[in-house]
């Protein structure tokens, strides 16, 4: 098992180098001149060429890439063109916010997705099944940023139940220990902060998790239906077991592997969706930071953020693969 994990980790290295090359090329070959971007259209030619020199833009592209790569493996993703702050530092500061949101979304998505999926499978071809699957179909068809806006209109502006935006009410931030508000507020016993974080996270988590919960529901339903058709379920029925025990102990347990896999893969794709959700809810995470940079064409930030997110994405997917191998002994560790 350990050998398998190490091997898979080693295989990630060429993929991540490839990702860095692709992102670098996209950012450098097609973009307009960053020096002009910073100094403006009316800057003098000598100022622009001085800045180009300073940014290393006059070097051949492979030298530029090598410089970027050298720093990147030491954890330095460069500086923002405009604010001159370290991209790595900014990403790490915002990282807990994004992770907290992604986990909240996947937890909600799993609860709803598995629940609806089981109900649909058990009550196959009844009104429950149809309602569940229509909901799931609408779930995969809705733009999440739109759902976010609709949720704000209903629950924040209409009913005044939940806050419109942000991660916590101003001035209520818990003492910084890990950067994760839920953990920090619990460690310090600051329950008001915990409550405030909770009320802020509900709407963005629902919006971000909607797509995943629909996918999980469809997967759960079809896997459960597969399992229910198996001989051992018929045997369980023939033995006269309770329906509840058949559903949860015999069917669901055997349907776990594909469901867990799809949940894991969704966690990865949530990172992409976070870009949109964070924008809608002004959530101070990586996605929001990236979008700001995109709108300003701050290419070192975009490049660093994409590389950072891609790294997390492949690591999450690797983790799912390993978990899969762990759960299903039939998978060969080779």
């Amino acid at each position, binding site marked *: 098992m350990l050998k398998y994990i190490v091997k898979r980790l080693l295989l990630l290295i060429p*993929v991540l180098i490839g990702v860095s090359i692709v992102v670098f090329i996209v950012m450098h070959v*097609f973009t307009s001149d960053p020096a002009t971007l910073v100094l403006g259209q009316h800057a003098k030619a000598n100022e622009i060429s001085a800045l180009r020199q300073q940014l290393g833009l006059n070097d051949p592209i492979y030298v530029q890439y090598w410089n970027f790569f050298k720093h990147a493996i030491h954890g330095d993703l460069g500086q923002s063109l405009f604010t001159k702050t370290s991209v790595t530092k900014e990403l790490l500061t915002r990282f807990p916010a994004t992770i907290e949101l992604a986990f909240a979304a996947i937890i909600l998505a799993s609860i709803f997705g598995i629940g609806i999926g089981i109900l649909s499978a058990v009550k196959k071809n009844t009104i429950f099944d149809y309602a569940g699957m229509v909901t799931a179909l*609408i779930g995969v*068809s809705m733009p999440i940023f*739109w759902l976010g806006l609709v949720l704000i209109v209903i629950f924040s502006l209409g009913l005044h139940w939940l806050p419109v935006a942000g991660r916590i009410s101003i001035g209520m931030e818990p003492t910084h220990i890990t950067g994760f508000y839920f953990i920090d507020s619990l460690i310090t016993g600051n329950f008001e902060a915990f409550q405030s974080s909770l009320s802020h996270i509900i709407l963005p988590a629902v919006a971000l998790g909607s797509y995943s919960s629909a996918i999980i529901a469809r997967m759960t339903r079809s896997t459960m239906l597969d399992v229910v058709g198996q001989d051992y379920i018929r045997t369980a029925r023939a033995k006269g077991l309770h329906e509840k025990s058949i559903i949860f102990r015999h069917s669901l347990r055997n349907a776990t592997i594909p469901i867990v896999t799809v949940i894991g893969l969704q966690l990865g794709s949530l990172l992409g969706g976070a870009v949109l959700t964070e924008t809608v809810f002004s959530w101070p995470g990586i996605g929001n930071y990236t979008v700001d940079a995109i709108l300003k064409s701050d290419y070192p930030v975009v490049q660093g953020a994409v590389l950072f997110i891609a790294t997390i994405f492949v690591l999450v997917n690797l983790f799912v693969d390993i978990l899969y191998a762990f759960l299903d002994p039939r998978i060969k560790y080779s």
Partner: protein
Amino acid sequence: MENNPEINNLHLPDEIEVELEQAESRFKSMWYVLKANKAAMVGLVIITLLLFIAFFGKLLMPYNPYVGDLSKSLQAPSAAHLLGMDEQGRDILSRIIDGTKVSLRVGIIAVAFALSIGTFFGSIAAYYSGKVDMIIMRFMDILLAIPSLLLAIAFMTALGRGIDKAIIAIGFVTIPEYARIVRASILSVKESEFVQAAKVIGNRDSVIIFKHILPNVLSPIIVRATLGISSAILDTAALGFLGLGVQPPYAEWGSMLGSGRGYFFNAPYIVLFPGIAITITVLAFNLLGDGLRDALDPKLRK
């Protein structure tokens, strides 16, 4: 995946006809199954309606979608303006109608773009295997390692804004999906007798791939492409929402949501209706795609 290669296509002149007949009957039987699927039919009807709106939108629009009357800005829905007015006093219904062709165009062209390039690389990888396969598929793995929307966004940052660029960005990031599906499908029939026969006769590789192999593995590709249109439409809307896609004053559903965002506190309908339009369109392609998958996958046939 269905393929029932017949050995009888050894005779060169008849062979293509036989294949065409097979393909025809396959599509006929597919159509029968599809027709019985109510959900897929609903999807197809909606898509037909949307295509109609896209083509004849000009005749259906009650107002000019680009000309606003600032005195009527943010007016609520009324008999004169069924879906209300946007921040610049333009009729939202007319803008949604106008946006139909943008979303469909980007969705369909982006998928066609990704499909053709993906098919090309996927077929080459599968047919030649070995090093060619490894190089192509490793490159596809690299692209798949970046969340697709994020890569599309990065592309837009680099390429600049606009509809053509959105098509390229959205198309490019989905190439690996098609390459993978095509590769897997081709590998499943590559060793079949009809392919061997075509080789023995002395056909060129390109003829074997495009005339003999691809028509036999179309089903999963069609399904993927149909579902791909729905995700391309969602991505277009996302780019538009972020201000990267179609530029004002042109109407595109996502950018309508993006520009309406600043006003939805007072006028929620400004973001409500474009979102409904996106959802209905994406839903229609999802319904059709799911139906096609059921119709084309013999395992699911009851």
